[in-house]
């Protein structure tokens, strides 16, 4: 928001100060565009952090230290324990996305003339709608499943990040290259649906794995 309201104004001021036809002031515009781009990119790849955290801290560490068993022997069934573990981060991801996506779109559209990005950039494509939330939820589910499978935080962290990267790179390559603007939403929503389906699969697998291991 600071970038949109303040930095953008100073970039315009720098551009306005230039005599017509000369290429000065572009540095300020470039700085603005780069900063906005970084926000997009960091948000886009935040699913890595979610995957690492879910596999390592949320599940792997609890299984390794035995505190999961402590909870299960305190009258909390393993299924209830896993539901409780997943509910809060899932809600946080959805709410976070519900705030970020509109703000990001508003900021991106506010000063189109200063921005050097494109709707088909991987991060912009994803951050533009619910897909960014879907990737976050998918990372949570995949991290949880790996954490349960491996039962140790460090390997779970590594495998979760690798698996989500693979899950993200595959559709990235399948995204159409010259996409007419009218086709953006069908492509974005199809990928969202696909990622959510993988999320559902991983979540189901996590619960049934836990069910088969414990009574």
């Amino acid at each position: 928001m600071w970038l949109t309201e303040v930095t953008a104004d100073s970039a315009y001021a720098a551009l306005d100060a230039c005599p017509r036809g000369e290429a000065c002031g572009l540095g300020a515009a470039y700085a603005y565009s780069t900063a906005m781009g970084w926000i997009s990119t960091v948000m886009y790849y935040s699913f890595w952090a979610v995957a690492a955290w879910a596999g390592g801290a949320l599940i792997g560490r609890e299984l390794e230290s035995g505190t999961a068993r402590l909870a299960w022997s305190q009258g909390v069934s393993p299924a209830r324990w896993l539901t409780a573990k997943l509910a809060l981060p899932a809600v946080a991801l959805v709410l976070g996305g519900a705030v970020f996506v509109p703000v990001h779109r508003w900021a991106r559209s506010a000063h189109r003339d200063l921005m050097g990005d494109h709707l088909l950039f991987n991060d912009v494509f994803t951050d533009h709608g619910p897909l960014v939330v879907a990737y976050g939820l998918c990372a949570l589910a995949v991290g949880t499943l790996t954490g349960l499978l491996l039962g140790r935080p460090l390997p779970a962290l590594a495998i979760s990040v690798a698996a989500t990267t693979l899950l993200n790179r595959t559709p990235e390559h399948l995204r159409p290259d010259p996409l007419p603007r009218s086709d953006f939403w069908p492509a974005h929503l199809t990928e969202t649906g696909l990622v959510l389906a993988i999320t559902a699969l991983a979540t189901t697998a996590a619960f049934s794995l836990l069910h088969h291991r414990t009574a």
Partner: protein
Amino acid sequence: MSSTSATPAVALEASGLGKRYGRRPAALDGCSFRLPTSRISALVGPNGAGKSTLLAIAAGLLRPTSGTLTVLGEAPGAARDRISYLAQNKPLYPQLTIAETLRMGAELNPARWDAACAARIVEQGDLDPKSRIRGLSGGQRTRVALALALGKRPELMLLDEPMADLDPLARHELMGTLMADAAEHGTTVLMSSHIVAELADACDHLLLLGGGRVRLGGGIDDLLAAHTLVTGRGTPADLAPHTVIESRTAGRGLTALIRRDGPVGEGWAAEEPSLEELLLAHLRAPEAPALLTPGTTATAEAVTA
């Protein structure tokens, strides 16, 4: 479950219980036994005999590969709120204080929690309720874990090496607290341990695991009475028809632990073995036939090994 009106109530009943981890030899293999309620049972056996596995299955933390286990008349997972389980490494949340840990116990077991009992155990150890679990010694953690286990007012306690990292004084005192509490409330206790002296004082029942099944099971008095330590001149063959569990030559004589079949013959000095002698003889002789007293034999099948 079948009617138990004629027999004492059953805390645990295993039938053909098996657990295999990957390709390793089975931790439990056709394990069958029955543990009546209100007994304090010692679960012993060599390392890797399946003691921890059995306790974890009973606590509903691990699903067996084969067979069934009934806990307080229910499937293990269904009896979760009526049992306490203490894992060998005494896991607790390191970032919580002792008071917060006990509050967690109260919140997760609202119907049964006995705050006074849990607080008393912590106070006996001169622990400050405001100190974090992270900063406690192994013995202090054991004390907090036991407070959590007893505060739940369980009908069945499953304790995996409960006293291993306590100093002798704390061990004696905590064991006393545990036993007094169990006696007062009629709690059934199944605890694994390597410390035979601790078991002889506290327990009235024994389950000896070996090769994935129960090799010796029953009231300690009954088991001791069924065996005799004999000394005399002769060979193990002379001791027929008794079952010789273990024998060794001492000078020109022979000392043997036998499972009696009728009176001991003349020429042999006979005495009742101590619990330690009984356990050591069976641990040294893994091929000895299994013996389960009638009260400890599973109903589903007669256990003969």
